[in-house]
């Protein structure tokens, strides 16, 4: 079985990109990644399009073929499929590409993640984002993604005596890092007070606890070790790739503040990599809501349950801390274009390993952990990169 490397990465700016279509965004990111890798379209063995809500928002399915078509590779008849795993589509798509190469079937796979969430007017987007919940038993009754996160937050803050301010620090940290990332949606600094004073979405969460509606695309090129050496490219190794599931609905889970999917996927990924949390130089985690950032720090193994607050309090999650969280700016500030989000985490990791992350560059990067999660925790995909 071949080792698998990321040999190129690219993304569009994330944000409200009203003048750009789904296909334009995907093609821009794809071209950047391919140029970065220095390969040609004929080298591509298979393409995975990652997208979650294209059918509902842009009336567009079969996003794999759409990307291949407008990337001009339809003439090569390169296989292209769409991977959909809710807000974890990006991580899940990269994992499919990883497996395709690992199996020996392909030498090069491209993953293009894209989403356009600002195409829908007003609160109607909530009908679409709420399709990621259990539609008949959660969304039907008025639950939204933010409402679920809020109910989790209320119990978490109460049970573990965590202050509202600590939770806000997750968003503050994202904005601080995003201010150094030219691709980020929000590059303004945020204060704890600014989070608390923001408009209420679902109590106790304010708008500044919630990732924004984003458009954007991200792409990575994965290759076998053999191809990489043949092309004399220096890639970043994907050391391990794991995925795990849980109940779809929050009300069916064993705990509202324990993402078992994240726990299991990260344990397995660390085990396969033969490393411990201490060996990780940075983590890109799925903080679609600030509360999820705290919980994931625990479930990914960086803190005991209920104790992520100490990492936050002691500034350990900052770029210069012991476990920098979301150097990219995370879902809150870099942005959260569902299908592109998890692929964008790979773009950030690639830049970090290549020492191309400019002002947000983390020193002496050894391993990076990437966590892509569906909805309120139904799927987690965890990748570990680096190690050479």
């Amino acid at each position, binding site marked *: 079985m071949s080792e698998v490397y990321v040999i190129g990465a690219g993304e569009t700016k994330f944000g409200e990109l009203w003048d750009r279509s789904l296909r334009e965004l995907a093609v821009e990111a794809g071209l950047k990644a391919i140029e970065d890798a220095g390969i040609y379209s004929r080298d591509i063995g298979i393409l995975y399009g990652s997208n979650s809500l294209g059918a509902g928002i842009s009336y567009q399915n079969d996003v794999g073929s759409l990307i291949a078509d407008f990337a001009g590779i339809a003439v090569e008849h390169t296989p292209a499929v769409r991977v959909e795993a809710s807000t974890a589509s990006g991580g899940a798509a990269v994992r499919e590409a990883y497996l395709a190469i690992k199996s020996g079937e392909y030498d090069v796979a491209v993953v293009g993640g894209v989403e356009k969430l600002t195409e829908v007017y007003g609160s109607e987007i909530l*009908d679409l984002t709420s399709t990621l919940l*259990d539609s008949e*038993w959660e969304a*039907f*009754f*008025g639950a*939204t993604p933010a409402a679920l996160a809020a*109910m989790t937050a209320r119990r978490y803050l109460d049970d573990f005596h965590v202050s509202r301010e600590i939770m806000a620090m997750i968003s503050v940290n994202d904005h601080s890092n995003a201010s150094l990332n030219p691709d980020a949606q929000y590059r303004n600094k945020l204060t704890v007070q600014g989070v608390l004073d923001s408009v209420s979405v*679902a109590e106790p969460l304010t708008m500044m606890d919630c990732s924004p509606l984003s458009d954007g695309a991200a792409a990575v090129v994965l290759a076998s070790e053999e191809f990489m050496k043949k092309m004399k490219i220096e890639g970043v190794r994907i050391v391990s790739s794991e995925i795990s599931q849980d109940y779809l609905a*929050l009300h069916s889970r064993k705990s509202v503040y324990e993402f078992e999917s994240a726990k299991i996927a990260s344990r397995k990924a660390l085990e396969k990599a033969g490393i411990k949390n201490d060996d990780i130089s940075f983590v890109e985690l799925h903080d679609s809501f600030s509360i999820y950032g705290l919980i994931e720090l625990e479930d990914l193994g960086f803190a005991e349950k209920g104790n992520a607050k100490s990492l936050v309090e002691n500034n350990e999650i900052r770029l210069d801390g012991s476990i920098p969280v979301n150097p990219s700016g995370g879902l809150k500030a870099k942005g959260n274009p569902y299908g592109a989000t998890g692929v964008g985490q790979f773009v950030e990791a690639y830049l970090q390993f290549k020492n191309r992350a400019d002002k947000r560059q983390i020193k002496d990067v050894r391993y990076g952990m990437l966590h892509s999660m569906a909805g309120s925790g139904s799927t987690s995909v965890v990748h570990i990169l680096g190690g050479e």
Partner: protein
Amino acid sequence: MGELSRIWRESDHRYRLIGHVCRNCNTVYFPPRDICPTCHRDSVGKMEEIQLSGKGSIFSYTVVHDAPPAFRRQRPYIIALIKLDEGPTLTAQIVDTKPENVSSGKRVHAVFRKIREDGSGGILQYGYKFVIDEPPKA
């Protein structure tokens, strides 16, 4: 949203709070499910309908300000995780009270109400909501 067959299919469970019980391990499930996550294959053919009491307590809750179109006229509304006395937890609104009266642990019971309005002149959909129990009179 709102195709008639989908509404009709689940209406009995929503109108009357009918769950499933696994006769292999006696665990009660709501919403109903055809396979017991504990017993797997051993539960096939042993999942029976069960009428739930509609009594339970609030596990957690939120006040929703940013609401989907079908709920806009109800804004802000209270959504809760309610742990039913029979065991399962469900997601539902709490009504006939103010947010300041709601807290985790409070006893609630189910009532039958209009849940949502799909579009102006669209279908009205009904189901369960919950209200806080009256404190026992001294």
